[in-house]
């Protein structure tokens, strides 16, 4: 069984799974219970200035009968008095010395307020501080949360106040609601952050009620943007994580990253780790199913690590980062084509319609080996899709829509042209990249056919 123990900037936990700062970490009752289930750590729900909450706080994105594919919330930071939270944090840390107890904080943007809250947190014995620069609603209008995270200068200034006052590690939690995650990440690093966590929730509206015209979540007939989280946001989180871990400035002086955004299973967690996350934070899945999911998170991750021959979880952290590239460096000669295993094909012909209408018209429908026009065909038998391999552009759409395991696979074929990247073309044959006539001539020259 692989060793899952985690060391995040000196903060240790028996496994990389931390509860994210959110409703599941609202109280000592919840966090004690979570630790009893085996969670490695918890980031306390953000403490800070006084707030009042509303009803309804959540709206869900449902898809195809699946509940809570994502959740949208307009809940604020902790609405319990700060002294109550501090007292409970102290108790929890005393009870659980081997778990990571991290306190999320968000106060008004003045140095004294931040220094005070840092001191209060350190007095509890907590292991680290997480700066909430991401809350996208309610707090941002008061100049906190995302209002800080979206302005790199504020981010750097406040982080600097905190790191100069704190003796425990400081983690900066970034908002995804920016066009480029790199400037705020640099700001955090410049200010001496010991770690980064991402992503916070994404601005969203969960939906509109078609009977009442109300916005979801509906607060007394009104609605607003809320924070979007859950499985549906995971690809966005993975992208933002990869942007940081592949950034040369980050790579020159890396800090550990706590990854989050739609982690529900061990597989999700493994993906975040491969892209460079040392610890994993979870919220929506716990809100849906409870603390018990940590059992499958840890055992599933451990079994996978065993399978991969890794003795320690940290061995896989960042293992896929070197594969993160840019379009201009992709090998244009790399070639795959779709192949259909007719023994597995159930003739649903979703691949045909996807290719014919949504892609590049390289799948034919056939009967007895003859190509058929389905609009005029009256033969009565079910038609068999067949790939015209010479025309296949290797886009992969057909295999993605195919409902049968292993029926359509993308198979690598020898390149038809010598290896070349777009950036190389820009350097060596600039006219090809700017002039259509030159491009057509180039295609003829090397033998690229586009039908």
């Amino acid at each position, binding site marked *: 069984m692989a060793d899952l123990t985690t060391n995040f900037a000196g903060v240790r936990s028996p496994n990389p799974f931390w509860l994210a700062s959110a409703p599941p970490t609202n109280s000592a009752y919840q966090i004690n219970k979570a630790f*009893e*289930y*085996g969670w490695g750590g918890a980031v306390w729900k953000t403490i800070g200035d006084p707030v009042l909450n509303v009803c309804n706080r959540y709206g869900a994105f449902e898809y195809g009968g*699946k509940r809570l594919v994502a959740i949208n919330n307009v809940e604020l930071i902790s609405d319990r008095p700060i002294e109550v939270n501090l007292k409970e944090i102290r108790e929890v840390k005393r009870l659980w010395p081997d778990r990571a107890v991290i306190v999320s904080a968000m106060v008004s943007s003045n140095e004294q307020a931040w220094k005070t809250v840092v001191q209060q947190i350190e007095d509890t014995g907590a292991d680290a501080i997480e700066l909430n620069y991401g809350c996208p609603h309610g707090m941002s209008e008061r100049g906190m949360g995302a209002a800080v995270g979206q302005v790199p200068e504020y981010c750097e200034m406040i982080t600097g106040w905190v790191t100069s006052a704190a003796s425990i590690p400081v983690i900066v939690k970034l908002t995804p609601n920016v066009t480029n995650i790199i400037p705020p990440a640099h700001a955090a690093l410049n200010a001496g952050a010991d770690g980064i966590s991402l992503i916070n929730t994404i601005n969203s509206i969960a939906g509109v009620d078609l009977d009442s015209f109300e916005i979801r979540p509906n607060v007394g007939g009104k609605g607003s943007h809320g924070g979007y989280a859950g499985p549906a946001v995971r690809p966005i989180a993975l992208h933002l994580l990869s942007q940081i871990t592949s950034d040369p400035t980050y790579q020159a002086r890396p800090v550990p990253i706590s990854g989050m955004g739609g982690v529900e299973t061990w597989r999700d967690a493994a993906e975040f780790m491969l892209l460079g996350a040392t610890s994993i934070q979870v919220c929506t899945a716990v809100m849906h199913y409870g603390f018990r999911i940590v059992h499958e998170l840890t055992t599933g991750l451990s079994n*996978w690590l065993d399978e991969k021959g890794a003795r320690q979880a940290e061995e896989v952290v960042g293992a896929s980062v070197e594969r993160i590239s840019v379009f201009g460096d992709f090998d244009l000669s790399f070639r795959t084509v779709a192949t259909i295993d007719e023994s597995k094909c159930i003739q649903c012909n979703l691949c045909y319609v996807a290719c014919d209408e949504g892609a590049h018209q390289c799948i034919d429908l056939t009967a007895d080996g003859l190509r058929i026009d389905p609009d005029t065909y009256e033969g009565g038998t079910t038609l068999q899709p067949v790939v015209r391999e010479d025309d296949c552009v290797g886009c992969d759409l057909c295999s993605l829509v195919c409902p049968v395991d292993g029926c359509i696979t993308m198979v690598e074929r020898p390149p038809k042209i010598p290896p070349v990247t777009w950036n190389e073309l820009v350097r060596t044959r600039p006219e090809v990249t700017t002039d259509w006539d030159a491009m057509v001539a180039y295609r003829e020259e090397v033998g690229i056919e586009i039908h």
Partner: protein
Amino acid sequence: MREHELTLAQLQDSFTETYPRYTPNEATVEANRCLYCFDAPCIQACPTGIDVPTFIRQIANGNLLGAATTILESNLIGHSCGRVCPVDELCVGACVLGAEHRPIAIGRLQRYATDHVFETGARVFEPAPDSGKRVAIVGAGPAGLSAAGELAKRGVRATVFERQELPGGLSTYGIVVMREPTRVALEEVEFIQSLGVEVVTGVEVGVDVSPQELIEGYDAVLLAAGTGPVPRLNVPGEELEGVIDALPFIAATKLADKDGVERLREIPVGDEVIVVGAGNTAVDAATVAKRLGAERVTMLYRRSRAEMTAYDFEVAFVRNEGVDIRLLTQPVEILGDEHGRVTGVRCVRMRLGEPDASGRRRPEPVPGSELVLPADQVIKAIGQEKLTALFAAFGIESIGGYVKVDEELRTSHPKVFAAGDCVRLTGHALTVTAAEDGKIAARAIARQLGVEELRRDPSATRGRYMHGTTNDFRSVHG
């Protein structure tokens, strides 16, 4: 006896598991339908307390090794149980999605997970250090194997004595191939052996080894011998050629499943087959006869449907096979020809009178209602004899033909415990209840021998185990 007209391909098709294994996509889709209920009723409905929602979630997440581990840590006989459990009466019957008429197919998902580890040979449990304690187990059926494996997890070495040539008990010899292929039963035995259990076959306790030798030579003895052969009908003509017992008849098909489908052709089966009895074994024998090529198969039962012990799904299954069930009909004589071969069964119609000692209404013959049913084969399936002589040889008390045990399955002898069908005085004698018996007995034996109880994952003190089952926790993979 008839000339068989079935082709090998037909026989193969008839003696294959009824439900094919899920494809990966089917398993994923079905697993993702599970709501992952909190405090799920399926867990409570499982006699061994398998954490069903967790193993299904593990399948959904592609953690098949974890799923199998979750199953096997609660039930070492889970490879069989996924196939043979009457799930509609247990976990599936309790599934909350039953309210929408489509409960989760828990048995098939369980089988999907255990098939994976048994095929890959992945190691599920760590061997425990030897405690130096030794236990003898009589009977290598589900109860004995479950107990042996649970003892092995605690470092107690068990030697299992089996009188048959093959271990596995009813899983190997008694459950029809359509529900459990012989291979599955034998894989399960190998898995138990891999935990450090010794299985000795072809040795009958009471004949080849004396109970006294076991009691004196081991720290404890577990009696898990099941039940005996089918009893006599006690009607004239029972010695005629063509009158057979259901159990060896079914066992022959199980051996053919192991040795090659062509061996099915060596099993004598009639054209007009009468099965006497209406329990699970009778249903199985009737199904087997039909699938071996019998023209007409009729089950006779002297009471009504309400008193039949076979489950609804079994009755539906066997009727779908084309088997007739004649209720309120009792055989009074088996008729034969001049060569001593069966030609028919003389029966009498019955009606139900006042309740008898078992609480069921007593069947009484209807005067003048005799009839003769033609038959060239009669299969007896009216229950199984009790092993009272064996119990006496161990010097332990019994009640109604079953070993008298307390809640921890202790017998009246301080070194002897008993589990499985030989203690199943009430309730259904299921593989899964035998497996749970094995766990209970192993825990009690270990405690008696002063062996340390298993501990859970130290970082988790809560969760998964809130149902007060006898689950034990020392797995490699979780």
